[in-house]
Structure formats: structure tokens, C-alpha cells
């Protein structure tokens, strides 16, 4: 009895485990977060003690998988750079030293700037830092626009079935029939004209976008191309989510608790939102993390093809595209942005992969067994 009691206590506080340095670091961040919430909401910590322990255990499990740690590390860096990069950059993205000093034109790494300069003579480090923001913002907005749309359509199709299902899924199939990049290219090429009208008539939207991308007011004219890429990618991105949501909804719809919910007289919308969606959201979230890398890659691909960001707006794909004209002389214009994209995508994929293991209760148990308990307790 005593032992069982101790075991339960251990799960509640997380103090019973032998923690590695990584565990201590993640614990520290969780404690900081919990203190922050507790100061806003009194008594939150006492009420959610088991939830906090669960978070800690989740990170212990994640810390036991090296790829996951590397992924989390890379993702944290890129998100951090995405947020603060433009402010950390030594030069502004639209600062052209070439006007003052012609020598910076395609100057190699180390001569004027640590990673060299592009054909406008701009510092590559500053461009890459600015590009981190562009990439992050576009990816997040694509996910925010595309995923909910896919989830809603998938839920409706899976839940109602029959003709509605056929209609939605055949439209989804039509979108899936085209290679996503090709379809995105088509949309990104057609949309900017219509969107520039929209942006010019909405100063608020214009300001918001400028702020999001950390751009100068001067670049307002180029915003429509960025927005077009986001919308084009969102249009291409939802069908995948509609598919997986529908699949999970179909299995969940048959479950008895959905039938019970119908039997107590709940409406279809409520059943979908309260009983089906929360039960299938786990795999979808993991898929989002796994998918984030592909969004980054597709965005870079689109701007490599000349769609999306135009100079002077910095974008990783665009830098590679511009640099390709001077290859192999100016190799740094391809190697550095290319590696950055590689690391970013790798980070998201590694994180997503181990998140799937950590969030799956069955797989996670096996990982948790690797976490050793203190005081020679049996594991």
C-alpha cells in the first residue's frame, strides 16, 4: 500500500525521477510558465498539479529521444530567429552598401561580411535573419488558414456521410489530383493582381502585413505577392487535412459515446465540436508539426521559382534563385540559404516524428520506462 502511494506521489510531483540536465532545463521552463500563469490566475498551480506533472513527464519522454531533442533545439532556434531575427540583423534588409562602396558586390565571406554579400552588395547574414521572419510568418499563416478549413470540411464530410461526403471528398480529390507545388504556382501567379487591389484598399491589413513581416512602408507594393503565396498555399494545403480528419471522424462517429450524445439530444454541430474533434485532434496536431517542414520547403520552392517575395524583401528561396545566376563563383549565396532551409525542415520533421511517439499513450509508456526512479526504486 505504501509503495503504491509513493508511486502516485512520484507521478504527481515528478521529483522521484533521476533527472538529466535536459530534464532540469525543461522543468525550469515549465516552472517559469506555471508561475506566470499562477500570478495571473490565483490557485491555478494547485488545481492543475497533475497537468503540470504530465507536461514534465512529456518532456522527460521527449528528452530521452536524441532526434527529438535536436528537432526541438532547431525549431526553437528558428522560431526565435523568426521573431527576433530582423532586430538582431546587423544591417537592414534594404540597406545597400553598394551605393557607398562598390566593392561589396558579390564579396566573398570574410571580406566585408562574415557570410559574404549578394549581387546588391547586401550582408547575407542580415538577409538570412530577415528571411527567417518571412518564412515563419508565411508558414504559420498557411497553417492557420489551411488546417481549420480542412478540419471543418473533413468533420462535416465524415460525420454526415452520404451525398455531402461524396461532394466534399470529390472536390478534395480534385485538389489532390494536381501536384501541390504546380497548383500553388498556378494560384500564386494569378492571384497577386486581385490581391493588390484588396491590400491597397485596406490600410489596416497593409499595416498588419508590414508589421508581421517586419518590412518598411516602402515595400507595401510588394505585399500582394507575399499574400498571394500564402493564400495559394492555403488553398493547396487543406485537402490533406480534410482527408485525415474525415478518416478519423469516420471511426469516431461509430463510437458509442457519439451515439449517446445523439441520444441525449445534442445537435450535430455540438457533437462534432465537443465530442469528435477533441478526440481526433492529437494525430492532427502531430501531423501539423510534421507538415510544417513541408510548408517551409514549399514556400522556399515557390520563391525560388520567382513567385512570392521579390527583392528587396529577403526570402531564403529567393536568395538561392538570385544566387543561382552567379554560381559557382558566388557559392555562398546558395550553400548558406540552402543549408538554413535544410536545417529548418529537418528540425520540424525530427520534432514531429518524436512528438508522435511522445503523444501516443502506448508508445510513450515504453519511453517513460527508460526514465529511472531515485532511491533504487524498481522501475
Amino acid at each position, binding site marked *: 500500500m505504501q509503495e503504491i502511494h509513493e508511486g502516485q506521489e512520484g507521478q504527481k510531483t515528478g521529483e522521484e525521477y533521476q533527472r538529466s540536465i535536459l530534464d532540469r532545463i525543461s522543468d525550469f521552463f515549465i516552472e517559469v510558465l506555471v508561475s506566470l500563469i499562477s500570478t495571473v490566475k490565483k490557485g491555478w498551480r494547485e488545481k492543475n498539479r497533475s497537468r503540470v506533472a504530465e507536461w514534465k513527464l512529456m518532456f522527460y519522454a521527449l528528452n530521452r529521444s536524441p532526434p527529438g531533442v535536436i528537432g526541438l533545439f532547431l525549431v526553437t532556434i528558428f522560431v526565435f530567429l523568426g521573431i527576433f531575427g530582423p532586430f538582431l540583423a546587423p544591417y537592414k534588409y534594404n540597406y545597400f552598401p553598394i551605393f557607398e562602396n562598390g566593392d561589396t558586390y558579390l564579396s566573398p565571406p570574410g571580406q566585408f561580411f562574415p557570410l559574404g554579400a549578394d549581387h546588391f552588395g547586401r550582408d547575407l547574414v542580415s538577409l538570412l535573419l530577415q528571411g527567417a521572419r518571412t518564412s515563419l510568418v508565411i508558414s504559420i499563416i498557411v497553417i492557420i488558414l489551411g488546417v481549420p478549413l480542412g478540419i471543418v470540411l473533413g468533420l462535416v464530410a465524415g460525420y454526415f*456521410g*452520404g451525398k455531402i461526403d461524396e461532394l466534399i471528398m470529390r472536390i478534395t480529390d480534385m485538389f489532390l489530383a494536381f501536384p501541390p507545388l504546380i497548383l500553388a504556382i498556378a494560384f500564386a501567379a494569378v492571384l497577386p493582381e486581385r490581391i493588390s487591389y484588396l491590400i491597397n484598399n485596406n490600410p489596416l491589413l497593409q499595416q498588419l502585413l508590414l508589421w508581421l513581416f517586419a518590412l518598411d512602408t516602402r515595400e507595401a507594393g510588394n505585399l500582394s505577392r507575399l499574400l498571394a503565396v500564402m493564400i495559394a498555399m492555403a488553398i493547396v494545403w487543406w485537402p490533406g487535412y480534410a482527408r485525415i480528419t474525415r478518416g478519423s471522424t469516420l471511426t469516431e462517429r461509430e*463510437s*458509442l*459515446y457519439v*451515439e*449517446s*450524445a*445523439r*441520444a*441525449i*439530444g*445534442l*445537435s450535430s454541430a*455540438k457533437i462534432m465540436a*465537443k*465530442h469528435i474533434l*477533441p*478526440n481526433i485532434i492529437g494525430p492532427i496536431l502531430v501531423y501539423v508539426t510534421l507538415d510544417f517542414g513541408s510548408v517551409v520547403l514549399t514556400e522556399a520552392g515557390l520563391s525560388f521559382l520567382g513567385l512570392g517575395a521579390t527583392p528587396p524583401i529577403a526570402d531564403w528561396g529567393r536568395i538561392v534563385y538570385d544566387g543561382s545566376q552567379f554560381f559557382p563563383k558566388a557559392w555562398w549565396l546558395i550553400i548558406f540559404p540552402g543549408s538554413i532551409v535544410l536545417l529548418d525542415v529537418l528540425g520540424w520533421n525530427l520534432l514531429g516524428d518524436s512528438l508522435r511517439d511522445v503523444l501516443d499513450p502506448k508508445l510513450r509508456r515504453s519511453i517513460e520506462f527508460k526514465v529511472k526512479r531515485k532511491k533504487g526504486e524498481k522501475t
Partner: protein
Amino acid sequence: MTDKVLEVKNLTVHFYTYAGVVKAIENVSFDVYRGETFALVGETGCGKSVTARALTQLIESPGRIVEGEVYYHKNGESVDLLKLEEEEIRKYRGKEIAYIFQDPQSSLDPLYSVGFQVSEALYAHNKVKSIKEGIRKAVDILRTVLMPDPEKRVSNYPHELSGGMKQRVTIGIGISNDPKILIADEPTTALDVTVQAQILNLIKEMKRKYGATVLLITHDMGVVADMADRVAVMYAGKIVELADVFSIFKEPIHPYTEGLLKAVPNPLIKIERLETIPGTVPSLINPPSGCRFNPRCPLASQICRAKIPELEEVKNGHYVACHNR
């Protein structure tokens, strides 16, 4: 006992599958009187659950209610439940006609506390103004269904409760809106025997307390003998015999009912082997012509294969569908 609360007439449900049309139930008619316990008995796949679900249009695609009427009588007015729109029927589900399902393990949503789920049922019919208020009320409801320590249990999640406790919660959800009819769809199948007895007693207790009518669906003749006032025996989607519980057990008329009763072990009579009904349940895509029981029936004759027997009253309140009665 003469006050009809539910009148089912010629209820027919078909399932349109790739293999063909499954005639799950055909021309099922019965009345349920106020305050009684009416049992639907039959083996697996005979259409008991489909009948119960069809009453409030809970049949899911590919199933469809082909024809029939279900009159629900309340305060002298009667409504055909099958003619109502989805919006309208929703007001009857849970409030007038509540369900208790077979498997308590899976009929509760694993993501919400049991208090929330009871509260949700109350909130759906505007019995409470908010979910929070409903959770406070849920404590009383859980106490009524004899849940130990209800103040603590409301915030428990389904996985923290035992099977019997979960079934108490589902019963709590069922009675939360004071329904006039409580449909218990094999409420004890997933539970072990000692808990079964507790749950059956609880349903009896709830029935007495709230004066509800109970529609009990089961394949367990023991449960029928314990609980039911009147019994309808179903076979392959049709009612073959309908009578009060004493007549069914004492003088069954239909050969299927007889076979069913012989298959129940009797502790007073020592026999080597239990008798079984030969053969298997027929496919409902191509049911046998005439009486659906004829391939397995010891008394089957020419007329049984040619003509479908009608459900006719042979004695006072004792209906049988058989040519050989």
C-alpha cells in the same frame, strides 16, 4: 395499465449495404403502456436494438426507416415521432425518451469528467443555465443513482471509474431530464453478475421513483423474468410472440419462444445437455419465404413456407405469429 404511452405501428427499417438490402426489421408493431416494463427479447442480430433506436430516428446511414409510425402520447396529445424533423426530434431525445446503452466503457466520452457529461445532458434541454450549474446538480443525480462519494466522483474521468460505476453514470445521464420512457439497451451485458444485479435493482428503483416507463432490451431470459411486465419475442426482424411475462414463461406458443426457454438452464431439472435450436439465424438480405423461422422450426409445414403468419391475438393479450398455434 391501459394508458398507452408509445404506439409502434408497422415499423420497417432497411439497411442499404453493398451486399444488398438488409431487412433489419419488418412490420414491427407493439404498444407500451404507461408505467410498465416492456421487454424486447431475441438473439443477437434479431433487430431489438434497431427497433429501439428507430423510435427516435437514431438510425444512421446506410440504414433508413422505410415506413411505420411511432405515436408518442403525452397529456392526451399524440405525436408521430418518425414524422418529426431532426430539430424537433432532438427535443424528445433525452428529455422524453432517454437511452442507456449496452457498453458503459465506451458510451462515455473519455475526454470529459462524468460531471460534465451529466451536466451536458441537462444543459441540452435547458434544465440548467450553464455547464457549471449542471455540474453542481450532477452531484445530486449521482447520489440518486447510488454512486459512492458523488462530490468527489463528479470530477473523475471515465477511466477512473469501474464498469458498474460507469453504468451508474450512464443511468444518471438517462434519468437526468426525468424522461417518460427509459430505453435500456442490454444494460447489463458488459457487466459481471454481481454488478448486474445492482444495476437492475437501480433501474427498478429509478422506475419506481420517477414513474418512468422502461423499454428493456435483452437476450437474457433471467433478466426478463426479473424485470419485465410484458415481453415481445423477436426473431429475424419480426415480433413472433407478445404476451405478459407469466404467459411467456408458463405457456409459450411460438416454437421459437419454446426453444429459447428450453435453452435456459433450469437448476431444478437435471439434464445432460441443454437443448438448442438447430440451424442459424437466417440472412436478412434474403430471408426465408413465408415464416422466417420455418427452416429451423420442428413444426414447419407447407403453409409455413408459403405464407407469412400475421401477429394475431390468441388469448387475452397474448399475440402470436404462427400457423401452428
